[in-house]
């Protein structure tokens, strides 16, 4: 099993290299640093000096791949590629175009993101599984049918609607929660509760429906019929036998998102004014701060690849056939 995991882990390296090359290509080859400087400084009245100054301040004034003027190893290291892309592998994000240290920002803004994302993930999982189990238990009844219809309707509503409507009803009309903002420490719950509830409801449609089919698939299997024939009561059957087996596809399916919880939710955080990584990314996109976007692309990919790795490991834990082969 160790060898298997090691092989999967090594496979992650070329993928990260690929991601890095794609971002490098997108950010430095499609548009030269000159274009970016012109964009930032405004299109009119841009003197070549101003462009040179802008580039020099941010370290974009070097050659892209090969520095012919430098000596020795500097020929390769004193380039934009080495400075901006290769350093990412050590999670050294450098400084943003506005001059802030991206690494420090990420460390600081990661916690509010987690404060929203982790409860949302856990509560969501609990709610979706219970909901799906309820529908599966009453399969074929009106409760089941109306539950599925509800899922389709919920799925068809834009995620933005949940946020806007939730904010309007709970914060503006009922004054139960602050509209937006954040406070570190335990007082954060007041700001966290509404986003979590809204996030859970927004995901109910798609997840509830998929999990229901997982349960139904499991209920249709032979061992369930055997157990029922032997006189196991339906509730016990569902909780002891079906739940355990249906959790396998559910859990292995969600493992991949666990690391990406760090990244936070772009939309949720910006609507609720939560100073997490999601709103950090949005601000960067809106201010056209390419250095931050580049860093977040790399970070997001690295976390996703970690998620894939965790998925592989969880499969080997669950299914001995993979472990032994």
């Amino acid at each position, binding site marked *: 099993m160790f060898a298997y995991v090691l092989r999967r882990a090594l496979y992650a390296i070329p*993928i990260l290299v690929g991601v890095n090359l794609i971002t490098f290509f997108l950010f430095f080859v499609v*548009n030269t640093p000159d274009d970016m400087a*012109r964009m930032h400084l405004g299109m009119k009245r841009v003197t070549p000096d101003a462009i040179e100054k802008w580039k020099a301040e941010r370290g974009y004034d070097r050659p892209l791949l090969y520095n012919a003027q430098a000596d020795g190893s500097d020929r390769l290291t004193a380039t934009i590629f080495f400075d901006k892309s290769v350093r990412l592998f050590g999670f050294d994000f450098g400084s943003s175009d506005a001059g802030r240290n991206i690494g420090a920002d990420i460390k600081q803004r990661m916690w509010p993101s987690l404060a929203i994302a982790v409860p949302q993930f856990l509560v969501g999982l609990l709610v979706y599984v219970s909901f799906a189990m309820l529908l599966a238990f009453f399969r074929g009844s009106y409760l089941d049918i109306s539950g599925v219809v509800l899922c389709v309707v919920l799925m068809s509503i*834009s995620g933005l609607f949940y946020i806007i409507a939730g904010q309007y009803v709970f914060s503006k009309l009922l004054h139960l929660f602050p509209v937006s903002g954040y406070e570190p420490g335990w007082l954060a719950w007041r700001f966290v509760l509404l986003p979590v509830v809204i996030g859970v409801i927004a995901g109910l449609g798609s997840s509830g429906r998929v999990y229901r089919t997982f349960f139904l698939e499991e209920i249709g299997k032979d061992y369930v019929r055997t157990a029922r024939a032997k006189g196991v009561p339906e509730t016990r059957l569902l909780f002891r036998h079906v739940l355990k087996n249906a959790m396998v596809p559910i859990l292995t399916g969600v493992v991949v998102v666990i690391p990406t919880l760090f990244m936070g939710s772009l939309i949720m955080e910006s609507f609720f004014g939560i100073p997490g990584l999601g709103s950090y990314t949005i601000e960067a996109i809106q201010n056209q701060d*390419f250095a931050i976007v580049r860093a977040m692309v790399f970070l997001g990919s690295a976390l996703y690849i970690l998620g894939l790795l965790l998925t592989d490991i969880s499969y080997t834990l669950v299914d001995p056939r993979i472990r032994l082969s």
Partner: protein
Amino acid sequence: MIQPVILWTDALVFLLVAVVLLFLLFALYARNKEHLRAPWRQVVRSRMAVASLVVLSAYTVTGLLDSIHFRAALPETAGQREIQYSGEVLSVLDTLLGPVRTQVEKSYSAPFATHLYTRESVTTAEGEVVRIFPRLQFGGAHLADPAHKGADIAARSAVAAAQAVAATAALYLLAGVLLARRRRRPLIAILGQLARGGTDIPWRTALFAVLLIALVVTLLANLSAAYHVLGTDKVGQDVLYQSIKSIRTGLVIGTLTTLVMLPFAVFLGMLAGYFRGWVDDVIQYLYTTLNSIPGVLLIAAAVLMMQVYMANHPELFETMAERADMRLLFLCLILGVTSWTGLCRLLRGETLKLRELDYVQAATAFGVSRATILVRHLLPNLLHLVLIAVVIDFSGLVLAEAVLSYVGVGVDPTTLSWGNMINGARLEMAREPMVWWSLLAAFSFMFTLVLAANLFSDAVRDAFDPRLRR
């Protein structure tokens, strides 16, 4: 005089229409092939599917009308040699909507309002300056006394309802005549059967859906001539007009993205599954890499880069519409790049399974070339997966547009889209009293489309997915 304009997305929309027409021609040829007919028969016999199909076609017709663009000629001036064309690109839909497009108020007004939503300083005849809600320029302007609004709306609605019922009744008769002729049975019997809902294909449900849509259309047509049915936005533009114009944007993103990604997904997925070995490794590496970049961030990065490119090359675009259109097309392309991986993986897995089956082995033994095996023996057996993926992706893409426009990496700010409407209205949320109609309009138009697409895709999946077939 008009000058037709074919935008890039228009061309692709027409291409898509051509593909669908070819498909229908093929269906005509294949109508005697039971195994091809059976799943479609199941689709059209589902009441849900038929009703949503009617809704979807209403949206599609609107979108197609909005895809025929032209530039109107400017009025001729003396001593002019050539006809000058307006810089404004219009569509057939714009001409049909006529007054809804051109009747622009000063600022916000609520649905069916006769007065502006905000106070303005007005100098009265006596020379006094007072703060009042002024009358709208167009909304309810025909009423001498705004108090009679209710009666006027009721009268117009009654006319609309009568028109809708008449149109549906005509359609009912037409369907009856056609069916009676085809089945060689008396018209009365067929009409009775239709009304009872006793036909194989649920015509009654279809007619109900048509009635509903006809009602909406006639109501809007009758009322919007005199009122702003969904209010006006900040610059006084009719919200109904914006919502209708947004249909094309939503449809283009939902369909063209798939059109762009399909060739890649099918080609690479089949190659990977059929040839295995290093081809498989390379293709798997490719899609895992692309897939591991968070979708929104990749789109954001690509769109940011395109913005820089467009800002630095303004000379490439003759009109604003062309520029906005290019951006829409690019968004479709980049959405396609991020969304082809799922289908590709699915097709790879299925091809891996299929290539081991006896009939493929037999074809190999007969010396059939690899290309022929891929195209003739494997591709047809993968098409149901493609079809399911296409219809399922559609609704997700329509919803994604709103989110991306909110983030600021969606369609061009000048393109009318539901995402842009929501984004614009969001800024007015803090206003007291709240300006809610833009939000509600955008969400309802989007919801209807996505719900219909979801229901239709369910029916298609039920019919085509062999695992679900009983």
